[in-house]
């Protein structure tokens, strides 16, 4: 910044059933201000198959209140670690078909390394700390998706002594 002050990053978190428009989200990320530097985004899509099963439907349950709060905390932690202009997270709940958009994370920063790291950090913690649960229907049978050990490992990378 020319005036040497780091602006407070704008953090937005939405949990919704409705689909989202990624171009609109990216332009909203800075709340109408023009971007500068870098925006990194992550879009997650519902898988079409899981191991050998073709997925017919995914249902997402969440813990209302705690979800928004935990995602906001994750984004705030990212903003403490890296110089961010803004972070925006949208996560869908309810019934979704394979190929549908399920989550979008956008991070704006003047520095590309900060934008990349913060976006990945938010996704890693979203996977391990935000209270969402997935239930798949495949070949007419429902089952809850198990947490992946690799998700916890990826989140743990960011702890003290891990990568910066």
């Amino acid at each position: 910044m020319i005036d040497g002050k780091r602006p407070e990053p704008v953090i937005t978190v939405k949990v919704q059933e409705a689909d989202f428009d990624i171009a609109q989200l990216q332009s909203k990320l800075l709340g109408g201000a023009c971007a500068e530097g870098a925006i990194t985004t992550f879009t997650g899509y519902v898988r079409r198959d899981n191991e050998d099963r073709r997925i017919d439907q995914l249902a997402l349950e969440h813990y209302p209140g705690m979800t928004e709060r935990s995602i906001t905390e994750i984004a705030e932690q990212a903003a403490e670690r890296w110089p961010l202009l803004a972070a925006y997270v949208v996560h869908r709940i309810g019934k979704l078909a394979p190929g549908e958009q399920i989550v979008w994370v956008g991070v704006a920063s003047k520095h590309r390394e900060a934008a990349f790291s913060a976006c990945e950090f938010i996704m890693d913690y979203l996977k391990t700390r935000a209270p969402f649960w997935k239930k798949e229907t495949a070949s007419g049978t429902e089952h809850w998706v198990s947490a992946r050990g690799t998700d916890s490992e990826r989140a743990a990378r960011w702890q003290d002594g891990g990568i910066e």
Partner: protein
Amino acid sequence: MLKVLFFARVREQLGCAALELQWPEHGLDLDGLQEQLCRERGARWRAVLAQDNMVRAVNQTVVSGNRALHNGDEIAFFPPVTGG
């Protein structure tokens, strides 16, 4: 009063999404609450709540280990999260 919530597979296994409990005059901690639920509701609850990887949250913050509770607290039991 205490509000107790169950999510995802835990909710299904218990057949219960939410409970409201009177706040006991003698006080209660998290392990004590879990023991009380198991005692009152039987073996099925005891087996479900003792599962490996059960996550417990107090006032929407995940806690590890036991924790003192206070009147008005919101407690939740749920399996490891799988979001995103």
